[in-house]
């Protein structure tokens, strides 16, 4: 195949890209190099680890689902509907990122806890109590992860050509149909990226979770919490646990994302 050389990847891009990659990957390599390999088999055979891992995956996925369901419409609202104070609302949405995680947990307790602003009504009217339950873990993770999805999807929406939506409306599509059948597929890569961010963030979430949902093995003890506890008594074990978490996420992400990404 006689192909025009697309030219080598330009150095001014390649160099920072590789430095960036090294920067992100190097600490992981260090973890691997210094990992207590002899400890690993113990970790892998402990049922609690698998319990925590399963819980982590389930909760992170549920939190991502919640984020998608609530966050994508919110991103659309911010990107496509003009309303007063939009800039302020957009800033509000990013705040959960800024909040130190433990304070985030405290804020969640104040809002949804037994004595919380809304929580007291949830409890007395519906008998729903979120804190210290698995649902609470999902709530805490969604609270922390959703802003990533919202901001990232909003950015993609703004970069997308709104005239496709116009074309859809001239074909009789309501704004919602246009959104669902045209906009959504068009920005699928952006949504996938946002979902990956949210999922990863939820998977690593620690401070808000332990404060809002506690640390009960099998119920609310996710991997980061288990890692934290292990760190207290056996730092090597903590690193081993982290590696398990990392391996699983690489597997999931490498598997999932290429399918998502190439679908579009």
């Amino acid at each position, binding site marked *: 195949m006689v192909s025009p050389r697309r030219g080598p990847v330009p150095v001014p891009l390649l160099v920072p890209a590789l430095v960036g990659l090294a920067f992100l990957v190097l600490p992981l390599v260090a973890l691997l190099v210094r990992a207590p390999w002899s400890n690993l088999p113990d970790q892998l055979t402990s049922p609690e680890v698998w319990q925590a891992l399963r819980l982590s995956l389930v909760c992170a996925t549920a939190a991502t689902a919640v984020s998608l369901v609530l966050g994508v419409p919110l991103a659309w609202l911010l990107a496509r509907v003009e309303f007063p104070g939009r800039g302020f609302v957009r800033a509000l949405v990013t705040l959960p990122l800024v909040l130190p995680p433990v304070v985030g947990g405290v804020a969640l307790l104040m809002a949804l806890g037994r*004595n919380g602003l809304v929580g007291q009504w949830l409890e007395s009217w519906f008998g729903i109590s979120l804190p210290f339950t698995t649902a609470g873990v999902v709530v805490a993770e969604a609270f922390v992860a959703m802003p990533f999805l919202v901001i990232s999807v909003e950015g993609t929406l703004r970069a997308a050509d709104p005239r496709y939506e116009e074309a859809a409306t001239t074909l009789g599509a309501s704004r919602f149909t246009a959104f669902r059948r045209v906009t959504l597929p068009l920005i699928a890569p952006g949504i996938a990226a946002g979902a990956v961010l949210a999922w990863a963030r939820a998977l690593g979430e620690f401070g808000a979770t332990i404060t809002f949902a506690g640390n009960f093995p099998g119920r609310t003890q996710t991997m980061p919490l288990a890692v934290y506890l292990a760190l207290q008594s056996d730092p090597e074990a903590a690193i081993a646990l982290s590696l398990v978490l990392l391996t699983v996420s690489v597997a999931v992400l490498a598997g999932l994302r290429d399918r998502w990404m190439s679908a579009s």
Partner: protein
Amino acid sequence: SSGKGSGAGGGASDGVSGEVTVFAAASLKESFTELGQRFEKDHPGVKVTFSFGGSDALAASIRGGAPADVFASASARTMKIVTDAGGAVGAPATFVRNELEIATLPGNPEGISSLKDLTKSGLKVVLCDVEVPCGAATQKALDVSGLRLTPVSYEQDVKAALTKVELKEADAAVVYKTDVIAAGDKVEGVEFPEAADAVNDYPIALLKDAPNADAAQAFIALVRSGAGQEVLSDAGFLKP
């Protein structure tokens, strides 16, 4: 050792049943987990659930309405946050104490033998922040000996301080004896006399909103019993 009947009174006969939830400082994980198993054996049908975490996060949870029966804190100050908010029944009891030690690199290459040696210039020392219990105790010890010490960092907790030495980022840290023991041969402990004046109390309390106050009482009793104290001493804690 058979803890049967030790202090806490016996078995299902005292009507103790159900689930008891214990919020405990992360440093108590090993000892309390063992005590929990013993408690469950002593009281068939009772299940002990632990939530280990930073004392601060636990205190915040409890103030936020966590369904906990017992709170075992690593510092009187975090316990005070709960008692000030009226969250505890009665006065909290100190069940163990923890003494400071200097953690140095294995083999003590800098030849540190006293608190004063930490003020050597060029030495990278990490301390706990005064806001956290080990930091407060360290400050007390320094005050007693009239030393001024500028560390490279005030760590957020004792584990963070210890980690810095374990990874050889710092040459020394002032931590608890229990931590030095837990770290095994990755650090070397150096005792110093001022530590005696600056011990840290671990208080335990029955919580006001405890769903299972009876069982909670029984658990606290176990912790404070001789058998309980024995388990804790094995981990390096001092008796109150």
